[in-house]
């Protein structure tokens, strides 16, 4: 499953409904697209949708900076599995 389109759709549908567009290199953190509540909703969504568990230690900015970094986190975890 291509992660980026799925993540983008979830963010636009569930987290920031008025978001015009979301580039895959756009910072999710500096622009305030993710906040401390939204990141937990995103993590719960990823765990359910991609059938994986994200540890507390993985909830660091490097893994959630952009859609690309979130996608890498997902694909890396799938490889480990």
């Amino acid at each position: 499953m291509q992660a980026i389109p799925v993540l983008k759709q979830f963010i636009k549908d569930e987290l920031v409904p008025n978001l015009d567009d979301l580039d895959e290199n756009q910072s999710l953190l500096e622009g305030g697209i993710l906040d401390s509540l939204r990141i937990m909703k995103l993590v719960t969504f990823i765990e359910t949708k991609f059938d994986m568990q994200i540890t507390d230690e993985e909830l660091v900015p490097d893994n959630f900076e952009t859609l690309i970094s979130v996608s890498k986190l997902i694909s890396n975890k799938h490889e480990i599995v």
Partner: protein
Amino acid sequence: MDFSFTKEQARFKEAVVKFAQRELSNGALERERKEEFYWDGWKKCADFGIQGLPIPVKYDGLGADILTCVLTMQGLGYGCRDSGLLFAINSHIWTCEIPISVFGTDAQKGKYLPSLTKGTLIGGHAMTEPDSGSDAFSLRTTAVRKGDKYILNGTKMFVSNAPIADLLLVFACTDKSKGFAGISVFIVEKDFPGFSVGRPLEKMGLKTSPTGEVVLQDCEVPLDNRLGEEGAGAAIFNAEMEWERSCLFASHLGAMESQLESCVRYAKQRFQFGKPIGKFQSISKKIADMKVRIEIASLILYKVAWMKAQGKRAPLESAIAKLYISESYVASSLDAIQIHGGYGYMTEFGIERDLRDSIAGKIYSGTSEIQRNIIASWLGL
């Protein structure tokens, strides 16, 4: 979903209740009047293993599962009348030990956890500031890296255990541009240069739990004392809050059970108009409501514990549990005073104390308003 307890869990809870009744409650009213921390009680709890409850055996803890932790706190809440002591222990475990245990390096765990579990070190965390409470991640304390150190500057407010703590997990901003993701955490020892604690703050309740202000003035923290990566502050905070909202409030549930028993006993013994006051529906219905709150609170709490035991996240469920239990405790404390009438209002009977203690539960660990925000957010609002 299986909320049944194993024989070991049930036996352990029973032992905790007996221990708390025997060792922790004597002199609680007097200590509250003097606003004294119960040092002997702290040590007795450490000897029993309470402070090391969820910590791996490798670090001298008991390595208990979360349901055992919940049952233990429930048993302590039921048997111990020194709620300030319980609050101090809960702060120590969930906001200091657990984050170090989960996010710490092997060196950090080896250095701090054995002493924290033995109770020879006391810990806590410092998040809230004079201008940031509910909006926790808008904190102003900064941490700037200089060589092999970080320099921390800022003021922390309402820090549980601060006047007695040997170390605190201090939340500070390392990258303002990243908002909540620019917050980092540092293990700050009380002897680090630039660290100081103000006078203990006087409170409405939980008077035997010392609370204070912390000042960080060019406070030097070794690089090795950063907990987790830079920017891991929000993850650490969310993780510890999920634990605290699950386990700390189990002690409120235990206190509510004890409160209910007192009310039933009193309603049977107290005669007015020629019969026990429990025979009047205005009293018995209050007691019925207290029982309903306990049953619902238990189910929510055990569900959260079950979810965490399954390795699931429970941010929504722990917010619901925290909100419901804290508000139920206040409601039941008001009912208990009303049922006991004038005796309930007098400090020497210890009934009104529950109300003063319970109100704090609607404020710390995220206010009731913040819990409702979290719940609404999960509903897409």
